[in-house]
């Protein structure tokens, strides 16, 4: 049985990165700055709500769209926090993290050869999911614009086949985010060309320098936007796998069709815990945010001092640092740093083939770890040169 695996799947993700990941996972006592999740444990009151739901015997399926109670809470939360109006009946879908929501939305909208715009560097799944759905990812390199998509660059990449724009802000892997004004300018282009905007705002609670503006809150944007969010980053709930998609009825209904056949519904325990997160978890969010912000200042200051320049991240918990001056490419840098100093970072090439000069450094780690990691990187750089 030759060629049993489809070409589409065979072509996914460069193998060099995979080998590097295996290397990291096989090593012990590594300080990892390669992690894409909070280092906090889910706040106790949320965990306790999950445990309690099990004790009470909530062990069944839920409605395909998700627990009504959770959809209602999300609807209220979005209204109170952002003034967004989504009906819990048919405009909100609970998904297995934002990851599933992405798969659903892309499969719902893509016709063969449709083009999907992806500002890059970008989160790893966007391109792969677009291709799996039969579409063509079109990457817009943002490097020369300080890793921000500009209206000009956006306009330049649009043609007749362009169907949607994927936005993700604050951005993984750069931490860059957009002000309301910048988003308004982008929205004008989106509206002009009647694109759908798929906006992944999973890191929105971790925005440090200005208020976060959800894309659907922009004038005229709501009807062509699918807003994606979840509990993973804000409430340190990555392992619970709860996300949600909000958008026009027509799109949510299409997504629900696929969701009901593939996933059926999100784990009820996780949904019950998510209800508690919205009901009483905001204080923890604020506390974690303050902590991340301090780490950001410490880390960015430290990295720049070492000559690993990075764009100032306005959100999330990542720094996208340039390793150009070291003379190593990103994979080589990451491999050597791991072997010689036991510090793990993610090579920039994981987020787009052309980012050979960058590594993603996550500061979702304890202050002591960050301090020690900076010391080790300093030793590494001294030796390397």
């Amino acid at each position, binding site marked *: 049985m030759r060629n049993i695996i489809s070409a589409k799947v065979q072509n996914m993700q460069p193998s060099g990165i995979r080998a590097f990941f295996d290397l990291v*996972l096989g090593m012990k006592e590594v300080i*990892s700055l*390669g992690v894409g999740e909070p*280092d906090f444990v889910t706040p106790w009151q949320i965990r306790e709500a999950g445990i309690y739901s099990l004790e009470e015997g909530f062990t069944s399926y839920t409605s395909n769209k998700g627990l009504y109670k959770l959809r209602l809470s999300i609807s209220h939360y979005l209204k109170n926090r952002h003034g967004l109006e989504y009906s819990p009946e048919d405009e909100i879908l609970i998904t297995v993290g934002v990851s599933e929501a992405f798969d659903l939305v892309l499969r719902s909208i893509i016709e063969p050869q449709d083009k999907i715009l992806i500002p890059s560097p970008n989160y790893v799944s966007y391109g792969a999911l677009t291709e799996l759905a039969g579409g063509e990812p079109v990457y817009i390199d943002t490097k020369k614009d300080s890793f921000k998509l500009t209206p000009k660059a956006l306009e330049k990449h649009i043609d007749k086949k362009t169907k949607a724009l994927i936005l993700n802000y604050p951005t993984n892997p750069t931490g860059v985010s957009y002000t309301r004004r910048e988003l308004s300018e982008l929205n004008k282009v989106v509206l002009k060309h009647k694109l759908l905007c798929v906006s992944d705002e999973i890191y929105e609670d971790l925005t440090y320098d200005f208020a976060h503006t959800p894309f659907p809150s922009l004038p005229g944007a709501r009807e062509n936007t699918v807003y994606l969010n979840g509990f993973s980053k804000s409430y340190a709930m990555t392992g619970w796998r709860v996300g949600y998609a909000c958008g026009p009825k027509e799109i949510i209904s299409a997504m629900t069709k696929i969701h009901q056949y593939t996933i059926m519904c999100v784990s009820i325990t996780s949904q019950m815990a998510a209800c508690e997160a919205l009901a009483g978890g905001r204080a923890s969010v604020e506390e974690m945010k*303050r902590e991340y912000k301090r780490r950001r200042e410490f880390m960015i200051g430290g990295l720049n001092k070492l000559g690993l320049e990075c764009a100032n991240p306005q959100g999330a918990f990542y720094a996208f640092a340039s390793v150009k001056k070291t003379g190593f490419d990103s994979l080589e840098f990451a491999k050597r740093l791991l072997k010689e100093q036991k510090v*793990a970072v*993610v090579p920039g090439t994981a987020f787009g083939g052309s980012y050979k000069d960058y590594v993603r450094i996550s500061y979702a780690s304890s202050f002591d770890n960050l301090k020690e990691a900076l010391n080790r990187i300093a030793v590494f750089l001294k030796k390397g040169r």
Partner: protein
Amino acid sequence: MDEILEILEKDARATADDIARMLKKKTQNVKDTIKKYEKEGVILRYKTVINRELVKNTKSEVRALIEVNIMPQKDVGFDKVAERIYSFPEVTSCYLISGTYDLLLIVEGKDLHTVSRFVAEKLSPLENVRGTSTHFLLKKYKEDGVILRHKEENKRVAISY
């Protein structure tokens, strides 16, 4: 609360330099602020949290929570009586509380006998003390926000997107 205090409350060893880098301030400014807090008594002292159960070769100490009923004094209320009580070195904490009793003390001694003797011979005979109720502590799980157990192992995978 000032973020400098928030950081020091969690980690008294955080240096002025580190704090300055975290808050994007000048090291000298942070130093000055800390000094000011120390002078004003906002920062009283820097302590280490020790899990005594794990300390080898030390005799275990006995702790008791003692509720005390006292008679307030004219003009000074409870304060003067409280002062007489908390001045004993055996008293490690002293709170004025609402409810059936007036003061809540935490008292430390090298054994049960010592603590009992403190209550019987020093505390109870005070003229304004009307009654006491002693509860010996059996096990400490959490103190001042710190859960007393070994550092938790890392449960995250070392690398993820």
